């Protein structure tokens, strides 16, 4: 009658990859010192307010391995069917990032890498809390409007007079005591949840055909409310925070999820048009945006003003195909190399090959989560997985594209890699949500077979057998049992 699709947990492979990722991350740290001094790293020192911790290099490396293995163990315990390679990929990116920050510390004599390791401790804690407490992402679906309010509040928080901080022309920070926090990082996840919950509920309404124009089904004017509100909020962010990157991420996420939920190309076209309008408005209204465009198109006309992006290009060219090697390049010549331009620093020391490898690491994470979105059996999980995968990809595309002159530079962070606690914590929470969805999508469940539907239509009086799985989406059904190509049927 019905089959249970059971995917393998791949525990051993996952653990081996985790160990490989941790070793690669640690080797960056060791190679910096072996290349620069011909010796193993000196003692490290971490100071948090009045507290100071220090120790030889292997204690730091040990802490790094411990964090990784704890994260892996907690995942194994609570989400045994979670995707086996996402967590190793996340740790590999984190390790490359901390090693590169440590390498840049050698040039400016700061101790940012130790601080970043401390943030990683907080981030892994947050990750574990999500993994342990959440277990099933569908619980998130209940609080649609709470999420909306929370997300918008976080997004607009930097505009508050006391909390908000302006940095490099964009008002995207809040300061709490000695810490500064970029709330848009967290808002990104919360809004993805809110959009997913809202759209799953309303998608049938939104998908109702409107006017057909140039072969595209445009939505009815009365359904334009949500996209109008989202566009207005995006405009608010653009005008008051002057942050092109967050605007693009936020609105891009909304348009993509609207399109995915309704399956109507009209929404995507409308969304793209509105993004163009936003860009045009931003360009016309703000010198800041015009400057960004000018330094994107013609950076070499003004060496002083575009020093950062020019220096990054010099660095990438200097790295060449295979890079200078850890600690052998001069990425510290680029201002803000630890934050916005860490991709250029990696490209300089690991070369074009290493740069593409990092891009592929991100690509693999996104691909695994998108695959989960395809395989998931209920709409909220599908939409949420697709949404977080897309916004993550868009963020990587925006910042790395900006650093390499594919796009105008916008100040979004490089997930898992760049320096900064709020970004690290937010992205580990995101990883927790992603893995939770993969666990739910991959854990054993009954997959209905084609005969059941066939017999149902043949005999209208026959009742549907009680199965554990929710009623499948007809669109999925048309493609055959989801995930059958990957999983093993028993």
């Amino acid at each position, binding site marked *: 009658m019905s089959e249970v699709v059971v995917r393998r947990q791949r525990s051993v492979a996952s653990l081996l990859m985790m160990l490989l990722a941790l070793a690669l991350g640690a080797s960056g740290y060791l190679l910096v010192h072996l290349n620069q001094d011909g010796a193993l790293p000196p003692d490290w020192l971490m100071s948090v307010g009045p507290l100071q911790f220090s120790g030889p290099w292997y204690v730091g490396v040990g802490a790094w391995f411990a964090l990784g293995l704890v994260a892996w163990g907690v995942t194994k315990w609570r989400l045994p069917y979670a995707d086996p390679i996402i967590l190793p990929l996340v740790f590999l990116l984190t390790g490359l990032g901390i090693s590169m920050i440590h390498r840049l510390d050698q040039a400016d004599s700061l101790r940012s890498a130790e601080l970043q390791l401390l943030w990683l401790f907080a981030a892994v804690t947050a990750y574990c809390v999500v993994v342990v407490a959440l277990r099933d992402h569908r619980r998130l679906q209940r609080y649609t409007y709470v999420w909306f309010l929370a997300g918008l509040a976080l997004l607009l928080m930097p505009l508050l007079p006391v909390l908000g901080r302006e940095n490099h022309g964009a008002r995207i920070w809040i300061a709490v005591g000695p810490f500064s926090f970029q709330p848009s990082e967290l808002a990104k996840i919360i809004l993805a949840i809110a959009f997913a919950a809202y759209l799953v509920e309303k998608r049938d309404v939104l998908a109702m055909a409107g006017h057909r124009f140039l072969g595209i089904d445009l939505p009815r004017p009365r359904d334009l409310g949500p996209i109008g509100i989202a566009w207005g909020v995006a405009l608010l962010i653009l005008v008051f925070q002057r942050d092109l990157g967050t605007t693009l991420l936020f609105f891009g996420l909304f348009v993509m999820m609207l399109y995915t939920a309704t*399956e109507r190309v009209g929404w995507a076209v409308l969304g793209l048009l509105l993004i163009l309008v936003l860009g045009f408005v931003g360009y016309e209204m703000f010198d800041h945006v015009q400057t960004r465009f000018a330094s994107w198109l013609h950076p070499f006309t003004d060496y002083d003003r575009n020093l950062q992006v020019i220096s990054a290009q010099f660095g990438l060219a200097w790295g060449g195909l295979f890079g200078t090697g850890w600690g052998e390049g001069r990425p510290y010549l680029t201002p803000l190399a630890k934050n916005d331009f860490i991709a250029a620093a990696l490209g300089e020391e690991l070369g074009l090959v290493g740069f593409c490898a990092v891009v592929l690491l991100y690509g693999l994470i996104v691909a695994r989560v998108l695959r989960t979105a*395809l395989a998931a059996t209920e709409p909220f999980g599908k939409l949420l997985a697709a949404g977080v995968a897309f916004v993550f990809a868009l963020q990587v595309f925006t910042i790395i594209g900006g650093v*390499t002159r594919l796009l105008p530079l916008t100040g979004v962070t490089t997930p898992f890699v760049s320096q900064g606690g709020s970004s690290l914590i937010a992205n580990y929470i995101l990883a927790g949500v992603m893995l939770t969805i993969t666990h739910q999508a991959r854990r054993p469940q009954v997959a209905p077979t084609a005969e059941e539907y066939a017999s149902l239509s043949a005999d209208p009086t026959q009742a549907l057998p009680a199965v554990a799985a929710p009623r499948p989406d007809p669109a999925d059904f048309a493609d055959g049992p989801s995930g059958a190509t990957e999983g093993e049927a028993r």
Partner: protein
Amino acid sequence: MNGPIRRVSVVVMLMFVALMLNASFSYVVRTPSLTADANNRRVRDAAFGTDRGDILVGNTAVVSSEPIDDRFGYQRTYAQGELYAAVTGYYSFLYGGSGLEQSYNAELAGTSDAQFLDRLVDLAAGRRPQGASLETTLDAAAQTAASQALGDRPGAVVALDYTTGAVRALVTSPTFDPSLLASHDLDATTQAWTALNDDAAAPLSNRAVREIYPPGSTFKLVVSAAALESGLTPDTLVDSPASVQLPGSTHELRNAGSCGGDQITLRQALVVSCNTAFANLGGQLGDDALRAQAERFGFGTRLLPALNGVASSFPADPDPAQTMMSSIGAFEVAATPLQMAMVAGAIANDGVVMEPYLVSSVRGEDLNVVSRRTPNQLSTAMSAEHAEQLQDMMVAVVQDGTGSRAQISGVRVGGKTGTAVTGERTPYAWFVAWAEDPTVAVAVFVQDAGVDGSDVSGGRYAAPVARAVIEAMR
């Protein structure tokens, strides 16, 4: 929802492909211009710190890079810096380079296209790339003799092997020590640079190839060549009055002494360097014939680009009086000492002008030859028959005339003196010569002989320098 998710996946995939394609495009297309950018500190510092190749004179490295424990890693050192500065130039962090250090920068730094394979091997072997060495054509003995004979008088000496064009000696005075500009102490470099540029004696200017001066009577060789090519013989009689009135002018051109009659042979005119005879001759030949002859010797061509040499010039549109003055190497005729050495060399080489060069071969790090220079003919200045006639006339100058101080027993030497007097400044003393064995042509230019103006003569002050150079090469 799977349809839209698939399409979104394609968009996401395109975004990641775009990132990688853009980075690859940048690597392939933009890297050359980024690396060549003058504002690229990475390249500048690294280039300054590379293990640049040596510059060799004979088998001796006169310029080399020594390992040093500072932020650059290698220190450029100039053994006998002052002696070879005119050729090697300097290599400075703040002020770039000059001479061979600049013109062969890519080879010395190991970044030239020809060294691509070496770089690939280095990359595979994990070695630091090393630059190629330059083997120069200089002869240490000739260079030292020229420098010592010139002493501290401002001027220049150029010696060429006229059969190949190889530069055997190239001296300019006063000179400088390139070590001062190659220092890693950038404050000291700045001070040295300021001092060298403020020095009234202009030690940074290369008088041998980068400056042009009126060649005086040495230019009579070019007029003689034009005369022989136009059909005259060494025995043809030419008018040699004590003075000539320049057409359209009240100025009278006089001879320094008696030329030996109102009509003398062309040979005699060259031997005694008779001004009126050559002025008349030049006037008859006309400026076009003179310019054409000068250009066949190399005038108007930028010579020795390795040292960024300049072209010598013959006036573009002189009136008859100016043509007559030009015929004795005055008015606006201006030549580098290198050019005048080529004039003498071409005459000795039976009329064939060889292109001068300084670097005979470039050798990679395993001493394999990256490129080798073969002698190259620049032009034919005159027929072999006429060249031999002019050789005899030049030998007579040294045997019986103004160039007697260049005589070397047992060696056939031809020469021509010159004393360029213009205005109030100290006259320039010139001497150009060639020897049959060794096959060398020499030009000596003494800008300031350090004696009273009326006593200056090429025969007295420049000819002994030429003799010293030729003797050093025997």
